[in-house]
Every structure is written in structure tokens, then in C-alpha cells.
């Protein structure tokens, strides 16, 4: 057993020195391989991280949101709906919510205005980091917003939001209910939508049905539905990108296959010598196995590390426009670093597996040369 380990150690030793002897040739292969892994890893890390952000955001959202539709469009919902829903069995709480968008022509940016649950403090606002950045206004500064009538509503910033997930909070402005109504001219008896909390999550669907029956003009949206929609959207997006990237992977596989089968005369001679001086076919196969492993694992690691930096520290400049797909993009949008073993496993399957499969037959072919070939070819 120990001697078998020793054999593998010796062969690995030889493999490393052989790789170093052909630095130029191998570094091109490693470079290309790293690039392929980097690309796929960036896609997977990015989508997973964005998906997690979305899930993290939704975790705090209510079990169900009820919107009113008018002429097929989202409309303000009258406050009397709240009372009816509150009386339904299994409903814990019902709250009218205020939120909307504000276009700031100076910065040509859209802000999201939200009334916080405690109702907010009149004349004061809390802003997201993105808002402070674009408006160059921090705590203690004043932010004037133009109302629907064209009048200025002057608001004092009492704080800037600190949040793990900048994705959602970045463009946020928390405003008091009174200021919100003043800004957008919304009457006392209507809300943007209604948030419903349900006692037993299993009953959410039943309650949603009941609401729909009582108010046919409403649209109840379940949190799980939203989650699912995000999930499939991101799965679909990353899958699609991967399919596009598949072309690159395929090209790489052909490149690797070509490399593995088109050995240089020098390499052929070397394997011939090994066979002649007493290496067995399986020893040469082991040598080829180690060679492939060193190349693929080092490229794999390098690709993953690069992708990690690309996605989590450099804000994924290469993929942002395709994957994020938000209406407004924030230059300093930063994802919370997150990878799990299965993203790695998936990547391994997508890159190392096809590489290995493509090189099995060529390496075997090079390993089975006749031991006496170098004698005969003289």
C-alpha cells in the first residue's frame, strides 16, 4: 500500500517537472482554461448573489400584498378594503402602504419613496446611500422635492440608511405619510397597496382566494410567488448565459482535445523513453492523469478566485448590464460575498468534467505506444 503511494508520489513528481519543462505550452492551456472557468464562475456567482439579495429583501416583506387593478393597471386602493380583509379568519394584520417613484431631473435618477411602518416624522426624511451620493446630501442637509403641483416640498435629511443589501436600499427615501400625500396629491382614504400578514402560512392561498372573491378588482400577490418568480427569472437568465458561454466551453474542449492528441515529437519521444525503460501503460496513464489534474485544478482555482474578485470586489463590470436588469443601475452597487460548495460543484461539472472527458482518449492513446518503439524507429 505504501509503495503504491510512493509510486504515485514519484509520478506526480515527474509530472510537475514535466509541466515546468513545457511552461510555454502549458501556460497557454492554463490561461485559456482559467478564462473559461472565470467566465462561468462569474455568471454563477453573480446570479446566485443577486438572487440571495432578492430573497433577503423579500424575507421582510409581508406574506401577501393586495393591489387594486383598474383598467388592467395598478391603481390606488381604497382604505375601506382594509376593514373587510381584517375581519377574515386567519388574518393577523392588515396595513395600508404608501410607496412610489420620484424622478429627479437634476440627477436624472429615479428615487423610491416609501412611508415607513411607524409613519415617519413630518418634514424629515431618511435616505439610502445612493440618494445621498447622487444628490451630494448627507445627514443634516436639506433635500427639496417638487410636488405634483410644481411646488417645492423642503425636507431635512435626518439619517442615511445603513444596510447589508445596497441593491434595494440605495435609491430609497423614507418619508412621512403626510409629506407623501402632499407630494403626490393622494387623498386620505387611499393607499398604494395593502400588506396582509397571515397566521398560518399554509392558509395564505385560501385567504388570497377569499380576498379575490370579495374584491374582484384586486390582485393578491403572495410572497412565495414573488420569490418563485425571482428564482426562475434568475435561473433562466444564468442558464441562458451559460448556454451562450457553452460555445466558449465547447471551443475550449476542442482546443484541449487537440492539445492532448497532438503531442509534439518531443513529448512522444519522452513517453516512448519512459515505456522503454520500464514504465507501464498504467504508470503513463497515471502521469497523464496527474498532468490533467494539475492543469485543470490550478485553472479551476485561479478562475474561481478571479471570478470572486470580479463579482464581489470589482462589481462585476462584465456582466452587470445583462444580469442585473434593474431599471436604474448604481455604479457602486456591491454584492454581499457568498459562494457555497454547490456552486463550486456545478462549475466543476461544467468545466473540469468535459475537459477530463475530452482528454481521456488522447492520453490513453499516448500511453499505449509500444515500449520497443524507440528502438525500432532508430
Amino acid at each position, binding site marked *: 500500500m505504501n509503495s503504491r503511494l510512493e509510486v504515485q508520489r514519484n509520478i506526480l513528481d*515527474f509530472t510537475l517537472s514535466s509541466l515546468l*519543462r513545457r511552461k510555454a505550452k502549458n501556460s497557454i492551456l492554463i490561461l485559456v482554461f482559467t478564462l473559461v472557468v472565470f467566465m462561468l464562475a462569474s455568471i454563477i456567482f453573480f446570479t446566485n448573489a443577486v438572487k440571495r439579495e432578492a430573497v433577503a429583501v423579500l424575507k421582510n416583506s409581508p406574506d401577501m400584498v393586495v393591489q387594486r387593478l383598474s383598467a388592467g393597471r395598478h391603481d390606488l386602493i381604497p382604505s375601506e378594503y382594509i376593514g373587510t380583509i381584517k375581519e377574515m379568519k386567519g388574518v393577523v394584520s392588515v396595513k395600508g402602504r404608501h410607496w412610489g417613484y420620484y424622478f429627479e431631473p437634476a440627477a436624472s435618477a429615479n428615487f423610491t419613496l416609501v412611508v415607513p411602518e411607524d409613519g415617519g416624522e413630518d418634514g424629515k426624511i431618511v435616505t439610502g446611500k445612493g440618494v445621498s451620493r447622487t444628490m451630494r446630501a448627507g445627514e443634516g442637509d436639506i433635500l427639496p422635492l417638487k410636488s405634483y403641483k410644481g411646488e417645492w416640498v423642503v425636507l431635512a435629511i435626518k439619517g442615511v440608511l445603513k444596510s447589508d443589501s445596497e441593491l434595494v436600499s440605495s435609491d430609497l427615501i423614507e418619508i412621512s405619510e403626510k409629506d407623501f400625500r402632499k407630494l403626490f396629491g393622494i387623498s386620505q382614504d387611499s393607499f398604494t397597496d395593502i400588506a396582509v400578514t397571515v397566521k398560518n402560512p399554509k392558509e395564505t392561498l385560501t385567504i388570497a382566494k377569499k380576498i379575490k372573491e370579495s374584491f374582484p378588482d384586486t390582485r393578491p400577490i403572495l410572497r412565495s410567488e414573488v420569490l418563485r418568480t425571482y428564482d426562475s427569472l434568475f435561473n433562466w437568465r444564468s442558464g441562458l448565459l451559460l448556454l451562450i458561454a457553452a460555445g466558449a466551453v465547447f471551443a475550449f474542449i476542442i482546443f484541449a482535445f487537440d492539445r492532448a492528441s497532438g503531442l509534439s515529437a*518531443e513529448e512522444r519521444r519522452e513517453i516512448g523513453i519512459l515505456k*522503454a*525503460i*520500464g514504465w507501464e501503460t498504467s*504508470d503513463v496513464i497515471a502521469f497523464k492523469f496527474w498532468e490533467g489534474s494539475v492543469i485543470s485544478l490550478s485553472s479551476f482555482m485561479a478562475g474561481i478566485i478571479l471570478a470572486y474578485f470580479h463579482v464581489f470586489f470589482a462589481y462585476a463590470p462584465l456582466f452587470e448590464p445583462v444580469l442585473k436588469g434593474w431599471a436604474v443601475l448604481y455604479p457602486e452597487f456591491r454584492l454581499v460575498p457568498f459562494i457555497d460548495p454547490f456552486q463550486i460543484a456545478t462549475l466543476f461539472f461544467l468545466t473540469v468534467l468535459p475537459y477530463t472527458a475530452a482528454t481521456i482518449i488522447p492520453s490513453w492513446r499516448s500511453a499505449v505506444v509500444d*515500449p520497443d518503439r524507440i528502438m525500432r524507429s*532508430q
Partner: protein
Amino acid sequence: MISVADVRKVFNAGKANEYIALDGIQLDIEKGRVTVIKGPSGSGKTTLLSVIGCMARPTSGRIRLSGVPVEGVPTDAGYVETTSLPERFLTQIRRKTFGFIFQQYNLVAGMTVLENVMLPAYPTGEPYSTVRGRAEDFLKMFGLHGRLEAKVEWLSGGESQRVSIARALINNPAAIIADEPTAHLDTKLSSEFMDMMGTLNREGRTIIIASHDPAVCESSVIHRVVEMRDGRVVR
């Protein structure tokens, strides 16, 4: 030590370019002697060496090797019949029994002298340090102790030849097989080479050399000359 009976080796059997390299060879090679196989090129010398040295399997016939126990191969009869063994076992026998010296040295360029000498021992699983010690001893014996870490492409012809002899000896084989070893050596180096073979023979090793070089065939070291022509033993 080696008994060859009715051995045939046919390449491209059944095709238009069929070529009979060995045609019914009968030969006994005695243990502890220096045997030279002589003959023009194309006479089948090299093929015979590779068949004897367990590098290739003959198409038909039998080769018996005595005194080489191999795991998994029965040796009750006092010999191993190598003819029907798969490559895996042939290689095991070959590693233990034969050391090879080739016409063109066949050293691996880019590696050091020491690494080249140790190369045949890598797949045996012997501890690295033991093998290294032995390799250094051999190289010292051949006057190469100053060049252990030199790359083999920097060596002269004579030095390369000595490195390849050290490599052939690294697994302590009972026999040395040399194929046209003096083809690229001048007269002085050729006779030096034959002297070394003589020394190895006196240590008890069987030596088999294929050559048509008079410097080899007429050397005082050799015990027997076997002449071949067209895949047959003539004398």
C-alpha cells in the same frame, strides 16, 4: 537463463505490407555470459532484443525466463513463460530483470543527470531516498559525480553513454540489453564501453548486445556471437 523456442514476430499480419521480423528463432542465452547478436540492419536483431527483453510479445513461440519471481505469475516449473503474459506483468519482469541501453542514449532532455538515472525506478515504489543514493553511487562509479545536477543536453557523447548505463543499472537488473550501443561512439569510447560491460559481467550480470560493430564483435569481453539474417539465426 533465457530460452527462446520457435519465436515468430509478424507485423501487419494479413495485410499487404505484412512483414516477418522473426521467423522461428531458437536460441538459448546462458546466465552470466556476454552474448553478441550480430547481423546487418533489418536482420531482426532489435526485434529479437525487444522480445527477449519483455518489451514486446512474439506472435507465436515460447520464451522462458528462469530466476525471476513475479507476483501473480506461477513459477513452479522454475521458469516464467513470458510469451502469454499481458503487458502489465511483462513490465514488472522487465523492470526487475533487464536494464536497457539504447543506440541514441534516449535521455530525457531538460531533466538533470540524476533525475534521468532515477527515472526507471519511479514506478517501482522504492523510496526516493534509497533510489537517489544508489543513483549517486553509480554516477560516482562512472566518474560523473560532479555532474549530478547538470542537464543531460550539456553532456558529451561519452558522458551521455555512461548516464544511460547508470540508468540501466538503477533497478539492479540481472541482465543488461544493449542495442547498437557503440554506433555513435569513436573507437576509444567504444572500447571503454566494452570494458565497462566486462566489469558488469564480472559482477555476475548477463549481457546481451546487438551490434554489427567489429569493435564489439571482436572485443575480448564477449563469450559468444550469434549471427542473424532475415529473421533467422544463421550461426
